[in-house]
């Protein structure tokens, strides 16, 4: 069985992966980016990105990702549309078994697996997923025209998406487990000024309830455990993220309690030749701009690693 070999494999095609790909391709490193969908990253679900430098009028998440992909492809980044079934990262040769049966090997890897919305893990959440429980306001907002819905969370994503949902819904109740928002001030000001948005503080969602047609209400638990039922036809959950680390060898990659990978300043993980960039890294702030920055640093570090450890293959671009 022959395996296709590359100098560098990048796992994931979000802002970190595509920026790493751009830098690696420009450095003439023979690189393959593996991603299971055509355009990727949590950015995709953002209707409007207003804080990526250079886009003074804002840009949709999808358009930004498309531009990043085109940019990297312009310098020859190779991409493969496939899921990875198995990672072998410990030896000098990194090995990836794809879901379609192919095997890819590489001298170095940059893990840009990213993260996904965290689930509340409450009764009804899974049962009603796609039938009233949503994690993407841009995707699903238009299904709630003139309806009463809820948003769970108090961070930037929750408030930004609640504001976006005002275009469709008649009333949005933001349910937050604390007494104040974590979201940035400018978003808070906009949300407090918005008539369609109401806030329920110090309250947790205990269950999603509904029937055959989907979600009908939420069971809430407020201060002192006082329970109440909030009638809504939809609930959007934005309570943080969890790392896409399921298939990674966590026993040998250092990581934090939540499973995000530790790296040094050069984006190197605990394993030689294995770098990590973007949301999969353990870090305090997760922004598109610092995911891209991680990707650039990781590609430069991977280039340095390849020169040191695989000097003879360093100009084998395809």
């Amino acid at each position, binding site marked *: 069985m022959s395996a296709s070999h590359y100098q560098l494999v990048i796992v994931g095609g979000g802002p970190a992966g595509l920026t790493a790909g751009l830098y690696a391709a420009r450095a003439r490193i023979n690189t393959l980016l593996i991603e299971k*969908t055509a355009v990727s990253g949590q950015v*995709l679900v953002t209707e409007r990105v207003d804080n990526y430098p250079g886009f003074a009028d804002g840009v949709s998440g999808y358009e930004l990702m498309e531009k990043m992909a085109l940019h990297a492809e312009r310098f020859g980044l190779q991409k493969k549309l496939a*899921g990875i*079934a198995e990672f072998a990262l410990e030896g000098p040769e990194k090995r990836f078994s794809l879901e*379609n049966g192919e095997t890819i090997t590489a001298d170095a890897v940059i893990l840009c697996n990213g993260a996904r919305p965290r689930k509340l893990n409450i009764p009804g959440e899974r049962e009603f*997923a*796609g039938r009233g429980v949503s994690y993407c306001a*841009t995707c699903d907002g238009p*299904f709630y025209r003139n309806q009463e819905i809820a948003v769970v969370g108090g961070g930037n994503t929750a408030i930004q998406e609640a504001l976006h949902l005002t275009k469709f819904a008649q009333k949005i109740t933001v349910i937050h487990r604390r007494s104040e928002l974590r979201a940035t001030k400018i978003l808070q000001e906009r949300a407090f000024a918005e008539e369609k948005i109401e806030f329920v503080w110090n309250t947790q969602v205990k269950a999603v309830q509904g029937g055959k047609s989907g979600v009908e209400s939420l069971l809430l638990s407020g201060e002192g455990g006082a329970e109440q039922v909030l009638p809504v036809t939809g609930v959007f959950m934005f309570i943080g993220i969890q790392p896409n680390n399921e298939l990674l060898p966590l026993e040998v990659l250092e990581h934090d309690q939540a499973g995000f990978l530790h790296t040094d300043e050069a984006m190197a993980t605990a394993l030689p030749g294995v770098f990590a960039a973007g949301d999969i890294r353990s870090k305090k702030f997760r922004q598109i701009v610092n995911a891209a920055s991680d990707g650039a640093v990781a590609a430069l570090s991977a280039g340095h690693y390849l020169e040191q450890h695989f000097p003879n293959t360093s100009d084998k671009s395809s």
Partner: protein
Amino acid sequence: MANDKVVHVSDSEFENKVIASKLPCLVDFWAPWCGPCKSIGPVIDELAVEYDGKAMVAKVNVDDNPATPGKFGIRAIPTLIMFKNGEAVDQITGAVGKAQLQAMIDKAL
């Protein structure tokens, strides 16, 4: 890249093209403003070519055709429903990978 193996189905055609279809049919409910929907577009195109003659792969634009998604209680996209002999036999929501969709079609063959 779009291709002509994917069948674009409207509300008025749904009964004839999907429900009455002799072949099992995977239907992708999508909209142009949905990033994740667009991200799986090329996967859907590939599946349409790979299963040509064995299963049908169709797309319903929920903006232009609100009745069909309404009928199936769809409130999130992308939603992919597998139809066999006119019945919805399997359903998945979100931008999933190709292997998951292949498994869904294979089960219905």
